[in-house]
């Protein structure tokens, strides 16, 4: 039986022995926890390669990475960061319902100092706005993308078709492909989100850039004839003409891609992030921007997710160093060749081994006037109204005018909450 004095002396001795060990642990390698959504095989391999290179160049920093799907990350990120058990560096949606929510809650570290020090000086200026909430910049947006129509070039040649220059020509292409017994446009909306992108494509063309800016950035009303017209052109006219997959709300996006690459659909309107899947088709794949009525196009451009740093990180310097590495133009080759992702800065990709479509995307994004991708700039309630509302329009349960009204109501409700 030990006395209290002996116990106290023992505890003191243990602490005295332990403290140096503790300080030795703090002087050791830094472990940086990173959560991202590069869970699919190809992008996962690319990210692993980047991390391996970073660790080799920075032996004092160890990356502990956890890759999950975007859907899996969203429910857990807020609680993880708030509880202090989250990552140091996170790859997360930059939209107002995602990155902004974290920033407003004080869970993200402002990166203005890093920007001012020139760490991200080569990144396109306009991309900084995507991760700027209020007056501070919290992240670096990534995955430059646009939307266009992939088409089966072999089928088009067989039917004597060419990429359309006007919307009337586009409808003629659809009619010809349908007459040949092939689904004209592989549009599938079981998930609800593909509709956002088609809405972006059509509204940019119908409304024009100035109006898109007024809708997205200046609070103009979505209960607008142009909005209703854009909804009608695709979700009503194209559907009723039989130019879309029958029962589109029952078909998944992956099945739509499979339908196109299997040669059973003539076109697939999607983002350039689908190039990797579409390029596997056993036929030549072409592309065109969905044209406006009088020719030309205003394709929506946007950014995917972005990198942020947790405000609770104990490894701020290591986190910034990691971000600087990821966005170093020297690593563009991995982003583009292995991951099929266009980084947010100017790249000379002439020496890269890229699919032809990807090279086209690089040229298109840098050479074409671009509009706005709606869903990455709009709040959750609005996106939910798009998700369910466009399904209702496709099913004939709602008119385009009613959907436009509902979008405006959702926007008002978002601003009020």
């Amino acid at each position, binding site marked *: 039986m030990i006395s209290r004095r002996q116990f106290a002396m023992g505890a003191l001795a243990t602490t005295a022995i332990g403290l140096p060990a503790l300080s030795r642990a703090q002087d050791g390698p830094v472990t940086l926890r990173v959560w991202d959504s590069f869970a699919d095989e190809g992008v996962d391999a690319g990210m692993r390669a980047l991390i391996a290179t970073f660790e080799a160049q920075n032996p004092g920093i160890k990356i502990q990475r956890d890759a999950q799907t975007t859907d899996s990350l*969203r429910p857990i990120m*807020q*609680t993880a960061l708030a509880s202090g058990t989250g990552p140091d560096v996170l790859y997360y949606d930059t939209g107002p319902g995602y990155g902004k929510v974290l920033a*407003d*809650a004080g869970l993200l570290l402002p990166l203005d100092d890093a920007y001012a020090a020139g760490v991200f000086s080569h990144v396109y200026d306009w991309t900084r706005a995507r991760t700027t909430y209020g007056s501070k910049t919290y992240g670096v947006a990534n995955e430059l993308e646009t939307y266009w129509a992939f088409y089966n070039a072999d089928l088009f040649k067989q039917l004597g078709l060419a990429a359309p220059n006007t919307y009337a020509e586009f409808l003629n292409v659809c009619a010809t492909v349908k007459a040949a017994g092939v689904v004209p446009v592989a549009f599938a909306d*079981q998930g609800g989100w593909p509709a956002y992108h088609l809405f972006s494509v059509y509204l940019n063309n119908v409304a024009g850039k100035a109006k898109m800016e007024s809708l997205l950035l200046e609070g103009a009303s979505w209960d607008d004839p142009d909005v209703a017209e854009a909804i009608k052109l695709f979700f009503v006219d194209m559907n009723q003409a039989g130019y879309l997959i029958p029962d*589109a709300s*029952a078909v998944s996006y992956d099945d739509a891609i499979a339908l196109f690459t299997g040669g059973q659909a003539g076109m697939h309107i999607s983002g350039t992030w689908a190039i990797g899947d579409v390029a596997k088709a056993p036929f030549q794949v072409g592309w065109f921007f969905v044209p406006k009525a009088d020719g030309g196009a205003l394709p929506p451009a946007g950014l995917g997710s972005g990198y942020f740093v947790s405000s609770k990180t104990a490894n701020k310097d290591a986190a910034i160093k990691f971000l600087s590495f990821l966005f170093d133009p020297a690593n563009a080759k991995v982003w583009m060749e292995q991951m099929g992702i266009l980084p947010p800065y100017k790249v000379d990709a002439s020496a890269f081994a890229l699919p032809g479509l990807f090279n086209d995307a690089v040229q298109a994004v840098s050479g074409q006037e671009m509009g706005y991708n709606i869903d990455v700039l709009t709040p959750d309630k609005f996106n939910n109204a798009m998700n369910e509302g466009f*399904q209702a329009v496709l099913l004939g349960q*709602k008119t385009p005018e009613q959907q436009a009204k509902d979008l405006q109501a959702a926007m008002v409700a978002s601003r009020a909450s």
Partner: protein
Amino acid sequence: MSATQPMVMRAREARSFDPNRAGKYFVLPALLLYGCFFVYPFLSSIYLSFTQWNGAAAPVFNGLDNYIRLFGDARMWGALKNNLIWVVLGTITPIVIGLFLSVLLWSGAVGSLLFRIVYFLPLVVSPVVVSVTWGWIYNPLFGILNRFLKMTGLGSLATGWLGNPSTALYAVLVTAVWGYLGFCVVVFFSALQKVDGELLDAATLDGAGPLARFWHIVLPQIRPVLTMVIVYTVIGGFNVFDVIYIMTRGGPAGASEVIATYTYKASFQQNEVGYGTALSMVMTVIALLAAIVTLRLRRDTEDGI
């Protein structure tokens, strides 16, 4: 040693090992876990249902605003209606079919063990696998259901089962019933083993037919198990989430939305955790009331009321 010492020693021994006190200590770890992982979260949820909280910033108490909004929320009532459809059809169907199949197996059909295994297999398959597989069956492009209908001259019935608002909920319900049926068969079959065969023989001798024997002899003897399965199924019906979320996400246009999927969307996609919690509280109360009513009905039936 004095004469009192053995008594003192026995008393000491009795005090040093009290089975009742020992039992409390054995239960304590489980109670602590229950408290941490159920009671505390449940009480927290009650509080959160009275807040406006986006899941990131601090919750802000907003009184009854969530509940006032909830009762005026047409989407909530639509989801609740779907839950009620699910509970009624999703309870009656597997129980009736399960009972029928278990009685068939109990009657000594050849291959009874094989059938029991086959019926039980869906229950051991992951709900995600079941949902994805049935999604392929229903697929309007390549699903075997539509192909079968067309082959048999019933092509007019072929549709986008999961994309048609008239059929989406019921198509998912069929999947859920298929996955759950095996549980009912196995549980009822076990209960049937305890039925008194002599009573059945006596009833047969008295001229009772199969239906009469089932209603008056078999059913009363398996009533406790039947009640348990009904209560379990009803509560499960109010809490259903996974199969619906995987197959339709509550669509198209909310046609298969239930309270749990609406709660998930409100909490994690619209950053309205406070409102989502209020939705889940309402569902908890409804499920609890349904279970109490079911148990009360069973007790009244046994008492002959």
